[in-house]
């Protein structure tokens, strides 16, 4: 699992190695500032610096830029796709590496806002940009081989089975807010990290399955199945959101232990959190349905154009 810096550098070409070293130096400087001056940090700086988040986000952005540059002109992603990718990665970075993460540890509704970004909006925007091919082009050869390990591919194939992917997506939305689970997830920093990464990775897997612009067999599943998946995950979220909104007692006393940063009651906090679970989360499914319908239309138009040109 451990990769030495030397072997990593050898896997990169010289300009890329220089760039990677620059990123590591920037990260180290940021980590030092965060460690030594916690009382003077602006809200856009990390509350707790995480090398994992930093390297994943900056690495993804870097390889995407490199992939864009090395793609032939006609295969380069358009402006909207590029914007969507950087917005998605940026939102994930902001929600885990700024004041928002500190606030999410102390207010339930901000925690739900953070998960709306990590599980829905961020991965949704990344998937919408259809970045796989571009990032692949941007990866150095050594890392490309790493992504083709049989075990990883098999695991991804299983996790992106439509029924399992939909089940996992809903299951994670239900598991982490179970009061007894949530209690320990907020108190145990390691469990907290697992919670945030689990929803982020699951979000990317789910939305990239749903928002693939290509028809089957190029895409894993047909547009019809994807419509069903996007609609299927919507209703359980509505039910959970409504349950939390209308709960008459504070289900999450753990925030009394963590200490709330805004002067609102536990029930108010919970109501706002329930509304976030209910409305914007389910709206993401509605957006997905509209986008899939648009993909169907575009593919049908392409098919008509193609058949016209063959005639």
């Amino acid at each position, binding site marked *: *699992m451990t990769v030495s810096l030397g072997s990593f550098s050898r896997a990169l070409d010289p300009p890329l190695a220089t760039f990677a070293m620059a990123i590591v130096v920037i990260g180290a400087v940021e980590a030092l500032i965060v460690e*030594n*001056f*916690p*009382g*003077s940090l602006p809200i856009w700086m990390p*509350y*707790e*610096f*995480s*090398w*994992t988040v930093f390297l994943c986000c900056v690495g993804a952005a870097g390889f995407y830029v490199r992939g864009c540059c090395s793609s032939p002109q006609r295969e380069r992603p358009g402006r909207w796709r590029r914007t969507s990718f950087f917005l998605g990665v940026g939102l994930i970075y902001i929600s885990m590496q700024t004041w928002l993460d*500190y606030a999410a*540890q*102390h207010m339930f509704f901000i925690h739900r806002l953070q998960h709306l970004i990590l599980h829905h909006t961020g991965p949704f925007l990344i998937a919408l940009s259809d970045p796989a091919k571009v990032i692949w082009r941007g990866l150095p050869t050594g890392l490309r081989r790493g992504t083709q390990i049989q075990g990883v591919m098999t695991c991804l194939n299983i996790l992106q089975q439509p029924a399992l992917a939909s089940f996992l997506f809903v299951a994670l939305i239900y*598991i982490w807010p*179970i009061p*007894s*689970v949530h209690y*320990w997830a907020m*108190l*145990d*920093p*390691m*469990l*907290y*990290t*697992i919670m945030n990464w689990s929803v982020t990775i699951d979000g990317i897997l789910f939305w990239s399955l749903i928002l693939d612009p290509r028809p089957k067999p190029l895409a894993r599943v047909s547009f019809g199945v994807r419509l069903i998946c996007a609609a299927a995950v919507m209703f359980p979220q509505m039910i959970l959101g409504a349950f939390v909104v209308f709960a008459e007692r504070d289900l999450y*006393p753990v925030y*009394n*232990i*963590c*200490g*709330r*940063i805004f*002067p609102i009651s536990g029930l108010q906090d919970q109501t706002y959190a329930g509304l976030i679970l209910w409305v914007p989360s389910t709206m993401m499914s509605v957006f997905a349905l509209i986008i899939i319908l648009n993909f169907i239309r575009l593919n049908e138009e392409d098919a008509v154009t193609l058949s016209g040109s063959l005639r």
Partner: protein
Amino acid sequence: MIDSVTLSRRSILALVLLLASGCGSKSQWKLVDVKDMYPELKLRMTDVRTGKLMSATDYAGKTVILFFGYSFCPEICPTTLLTLTSVMEQRRELQAKTVVLFVSVDPERDTMEALNRYVESFAPNVTALIGTSNELASLARRYRVAYTVNPGPGSADYTVDHTATVFIFDKTGRLMLLAPYGTGAEDFEHDLLLLA
């Protein structure tokens, strides 16, 4: 600590147990058991009783009770410190074995003298710590403590919010227990006697 890619077996086991049972196993503690979840005690602040710069090693061999607050606090801080004082008076043997560290989150108003006068109202093993904004933020972040000081336009508008939880460390500086605001003296007494 949070950034480690190695998943602790304890975290995974805790998650599995929670999912399987919906509740934790029965514990010997009355307070919230957080053993092995947080880093050990590390601080660098000034003790208002002695005026000395203190570090965690100065408290080695004693159970440390850490609490964040401010001397102008109308309710939470005096209530919590009075509860701890009543425990210390009930169980005098705890006074030599434990130290209560009251960390000021409002160093602008809490001067050394004011804090010293404040802590003298409580048990003799209660002292206050004061530090720079970075020293305070570093200690608070280590244990995920929230605090905000809002100096409004007038003195009546000055508000301070802070985590009201009490953090209890064993003699080696490991964070063992959390006591939410409102924890009774009996529960403190039970667990402090077990730790001492």
